[in-house]
């Protein structure tokens, strides 16, 4: 039962040659073959590449030259460009797109010898909170297949939750890693903006997009963050900030760590059972020596409106390149240029993508720019300032990741506002560019509950430390969906 092991255990086993990378990868490929038809977590399975990577890992390990993660399977969100392998971004527009290059994150995973099992399903162009906006169909939540896994990185979350992969990548623009992590009982990390290169990661909203990871524990995330974090000269917004040893500080004591509880995160919209789980988590941290403090993030309620101006504005421009001219979908028999543009884009994009392009185009239009885009950027500064003030008093901020547990497929598809509200606690973190982790904190009616810990810029090592300590004293993160 190799899939029940953690990534850290697999790395040790491979080093000790208890089994080969080929056996490990084959095991996961078989699981995908047997279980993914129900979940729809993968858009593309890269069996041959995974096996040849595993074979190479085995050879390198025999030669003593293998990286300790060589041969560990990984699932890659289909937003990261992969050389020679189709990258769709969940869109019909890119159904035929094969990039001639690897995203920097992919390149770094490949260099370490991680074996890519496939490309995971996602909301089209990362726009969505349920994974129902994928051209390749919805992903189902392994905890209850009538429910959504969250989004936009729903495929990655479902794959790890169902143990179809021990680790997966995701991207988080407004909560697209943390929200599905919460809904699928995973540990999900959204690093500081600029910590992981965006090169080759298909842009949704450039100033908010950040690549990150899903895993079963903070310990597992630390190992993979180690190889993916760091400055990249190909991304001008990546930050040249030292990458610490993330595993080394996992065991640090939490004595004296100050944790702030923002009152704005515990209001009427929050499922009371989730509130209960968070309060239980607070008790665990108190026992571990942390100091708990009530704090306020007064502009929290402005984060969703600000986000839904800034993100669509950037997306309206980022998605202009999909014009049917150089690659991607082109309509049949266009009569003229305008027809080529209109039909290629109308046919290539789904409705949520079109909605956001239209919102964004409107917000940037002459006469509206000041009232919308500029105002939203000002609000963004206020939100960031809230956090800066809070971090003068506390080291971390703890709250719920989502207002509710996984909802039913189709439940919110006709109510975008309600869908947008599922990211109410996560969005402000993107607006402020901060790192945050969602980690398992209990259950409500047999559905996972996530807690979110937010840190200051580049505090990933500390964040992983306080989650790891929590996971040493709780076992929520070890719970698995039935049938795994």
């Amino acid at each position, binding site marked *: 039962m190799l899939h029940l092991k953690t990534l850290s255990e697999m790395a040790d086993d491979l080093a000790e040659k208890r089994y080969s990378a080929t056996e490990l990868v084959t095991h996961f490929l078989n699981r995908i073959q047997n279980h993914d038809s129900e979940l729809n977590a993968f858009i593309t399975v890269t069996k041959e590449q995974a096996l040849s990577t595993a074979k190479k890992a085995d050879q390198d390990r025999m030669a003593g030259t293998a990286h300790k993660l060589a041969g560990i399977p990984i699932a890659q969100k289909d937003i990261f460009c992969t050389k020679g392998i189709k990258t769709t971004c969940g869109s019909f527009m890119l159904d035929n*797109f094969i990039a001639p290059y690897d995203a920097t994150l992919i390149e770094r995973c490949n260099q370490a010898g991680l074996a890519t099992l496939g490309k995971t399903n996602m909301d089209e162009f990362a726009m969505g909170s349920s994974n129902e906006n994928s051209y390749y169909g919805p992903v189902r939540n392994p905890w209850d297949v009538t429910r959504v896994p969250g989004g936009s990185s729903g495929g990655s979350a479902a794959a790890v939750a169902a143990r179809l992969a021990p680790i997966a990548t995701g991207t988080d623009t407004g909560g697209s890693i943390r929200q599905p992590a919460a809904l699928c009982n995973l540990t999900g990390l959204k690093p500081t903006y600029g910590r992981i290169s965006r090169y080759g990661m298909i842009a949704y909203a450039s100033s908010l997009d950040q690549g990150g990871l899903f895993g079963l524990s903070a310990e597992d995330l630390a190992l993979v963050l180690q190889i993916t974090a760091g400055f990249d000269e190909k991304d001008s917004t990546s930050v040249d900030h030292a990458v610490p040893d993330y595993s080394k500080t996992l065991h640090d004591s939490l004595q004296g760590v100050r944790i702030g509880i923002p009152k704005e995160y515990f209001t009427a919209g929050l499922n009371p059972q989730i509130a209960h789980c968070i309060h239980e988590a607070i008790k665990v941290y108190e026992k571990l020596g942390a100091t708990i403090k009530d704090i306020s993030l007064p502009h929290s309620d402005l984060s969703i409106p600000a986000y839904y101006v800034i993100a669509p504005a950037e997306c309206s*421009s980022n*998605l202009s390149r999909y014009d049917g001219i150089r690659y991607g979908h082109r309509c049949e028999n266009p009569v003229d240029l305008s027809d080529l543009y209109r039909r290629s884009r109308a046919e290539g994009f789904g409705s949520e993508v079109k909605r956001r392009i239209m919102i964004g185009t409107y917000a940037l239009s002459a006469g509206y720019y000041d009232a919308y885009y500029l105002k939203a950027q000002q609000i963004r500064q206020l939100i960031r300032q809230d956090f800066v003030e809070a971090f003068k008093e506390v080291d971390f901020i703890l709250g719920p990741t989502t207002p509710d547990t996984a909802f039913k497929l189709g439940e919110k598809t006709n109510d975008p506002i309600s869908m947008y509200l599922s990211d109410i606690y996560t969005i402000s973190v993107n607006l402020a560019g901060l790192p945050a982790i969602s980690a398992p904190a209990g259950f409500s009616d047999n559905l996972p509950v996530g807690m979110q810990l937010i840190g200051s810029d580049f505090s990933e090592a500390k964040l992983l430390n306080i989650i790891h300590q929590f996971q040493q004293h709780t076992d929520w993160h070890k719970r698995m969906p039935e049938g795994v």
Partner: protein
Amino acid sequence: MEWETVIGLEVHAQLATKSKIFSGAATAYGAEPNTQACAIDLALPGVLPVLNREVVIMAVKFGLSVGAEVAERSVFARKNYFYPDLPKGYQISQFELPIVKGGSLDILLEDGSIKRVGITRAHLEEDAGKSLHEDFNGMTGLDFNRAGTPLLEIVSEPDLRSAKEAVSYLKTLHTLVRYLEICDGNMQEGSFRCDANVSVRPKGQAALGTRAEIKNVNSFRFVEKAIEYEVQRQIALIERGEKVKQETRLYDSDKNETRPMRSKEEANDYRYFPDPDLLPLCVTSEWVEKIRQTMPELPTQKRVRFEHQYELSAYDASLLAGHKALADYFEAVLKLTPAPAKLVVNWVMGDLAAALNKVNLDISKSPLSPEKMAGLLNRIHDNTLSGKLAKEVFEVLWEGNADTDTIIKERGLEQMTDSSEIEKIIQQIIDKNPTQLAEYQAGKDRLFAFFVGQVMKESRGKANPEQVNALLKEKLKGEMNV
């Protein structure tokens, strides 16, 4: 009614970098279509721009050369519009916060006076690709080699008052950017392009008239003609009681007229916003100072220095300073010879320039090195060569490898300066031409030239003409007294 013309110019100077403004692809002109376009230039999904440092240095150099403010913080924005040769669906360009603000350029007017033209701003941006509408059977071909080529857009104040002034401004700017070595100035290849904003107003009126923008005129001559046409068109419109429309017009050089572009091409809301893929560009004052240290002497500075240091006329100085390679050549020669500057100028801008012109070579590629030129001038200066012989030597120098002294020796071309030898020849000529002598003595002064010519001919051009003149005059006078 008397009308005043008001012109402001926007010049797109292609910066002479090896690679593109946001990618590592080459910028060389004339490559096979789509061989110099990388994933970033083609706007494939997920790629990101990274600013070319060289481009910033070039913009700063330009800013310093026109006495402008180099902004400590400038911002790249996205100009959004759809066009097939615009791969991203937006052009990255500086909008609200350009890198160069203010400044001015002094231009020489026809009457010899200097006019100061204000420069509003200069900003960095990327070029688009090219749409090719011919040879594709009703389809359009796209060449993305040019996509992402760095441009510096230089915007003037509406300070120019005639087509001639506009051309003078353009020529001055053209010289400047080549001096700074930030642009090759090749107008045929589109490295230096110009849009002209033209309006007219009744003389004495302060408010500006409605302007039309003439796009992409690619030679100095066409700029002049396009503006002249446009001014007449606008005046005629107003005098007929109609109004000038604010619009973008294209100049048709075949018909010599401007025509409005289709409104579809201009009615754009570009939805500018700061590009989130690029951080604000910060140019510290330390960096600006470093760049200042590397600045070459500018045309105006050079002109003034030449006038003072070498006592050249304003005309000679400005002609030389207008062409950096020519000025460099002039100074190189001058260093190697005691000949006076004026003599050097005459030869460099006279015979040498003419010879280069004939074979269409730039001075920088002159087959005649400054050393050889100096060698020739040395012998003119010390009277070894007469002007006529010098021209003969120049021809030989131009053709081959020999140097002046060798040529003189081989061909026996030294000037004859020995008076007794010259007198001998004079005597021979007088003796041979009794008839002419008689006529001269009878008062036909014009025949003096005949005698000079005969003497020069006899000496095969080697006799010093001044000496010939003096000695001949004396001799003929003597003959009269006999």
